[in-house]
């Protein structure tokens, strides 16, 4: 399976919004041209993207579905959250992160569930709006909740 790193995915997302030259990808994702060229070279050698002498584009849909496989999505989430945790504790003021452990009654849990649903609806709505904005300007947001018991149980299961 083709494993895709967060850096490669950013380049792919940029190409996904329209075929581009290396320079335009660099402007779009905010990485230097040398980094972009190095990533493009890797993606080309994996057969994911092609170059027509001017701009880069996707090669085939099969590779694309491989890139979006569950394993690769899992890796991406791990890389993003890992990177956010490192940046947060390195006191990067651009990174906001909260993790709380709280007890809730059934009714409070219902309220929380509704609030999360509202948040999800709001974000889904944002995704449907077409905007002319750089890939690098996107906000990266994640949320989720579980019970402590299930988390501890899964942790033991995964490491036994």
């Amino acid at each position, binding site marked *: 399976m083709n494993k895709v790193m967060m850096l490669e995915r950013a380049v792919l997302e940029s190409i996904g919004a329209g075929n581009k030259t290396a320079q335009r990808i660099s402007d779009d994702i905010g990485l230097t041209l040398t980094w972009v060229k*190095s990533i493009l070279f890797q993606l080309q050698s994996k057969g994911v993207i092609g170059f027509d002498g001017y701009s880069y584009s996707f090669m085939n849909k099969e590779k694309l579905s491989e890139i979006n496989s569950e394993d690769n999505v899992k890796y991406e989430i791990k890389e993003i959250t890992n990177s956010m945790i490192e940046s947060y504790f390195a006191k990067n003021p651009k990174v906001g992160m909260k993790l709380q452990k709280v007890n809730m009654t059934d009714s409070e849990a219902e309220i929380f569930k509704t609030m999360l649903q509202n948040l999800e609806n709001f974000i889904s709505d944002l995704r449907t709006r077409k905007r002319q904005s750089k890939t690098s300007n996107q906000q990266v947001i994640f949320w989720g909740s579980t019970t402590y018991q299930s988390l501890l149980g899964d942790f033991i299961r995964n*490491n036994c």
Partner: protein
Amino acid sequence: MSEQKKILDQFMSLYNRPTYEEMSSVTGIQVTRCFRLVNGAEMKLKEYLIFKKLISDKVASESLITLAESCLVSLNETALKEIADLCERKLFFKHLSTESHLIEKQA
């Protein structure tokens, strides 16, 4: 001087008692100078730092190897896969970074 002897003994033991030629090739210090140092000539600060760095590099890499061996023996498949994935990704990132530096030099 006792600190110098300690450092040289540690170096000799970690690098499997190298010959003066091998010592010179690892440290970048001339062969005749290596001979003098081993035979008691006083070490310069620059030389001390070279030996110190080589020792700490060797200790770090050996402890990582020992740790990896323990992991292979003790951990389950899921945990090993997680470690392998992480190593693979760190190496791939290093590869990308090296390539990007090469492109920069060529430009």
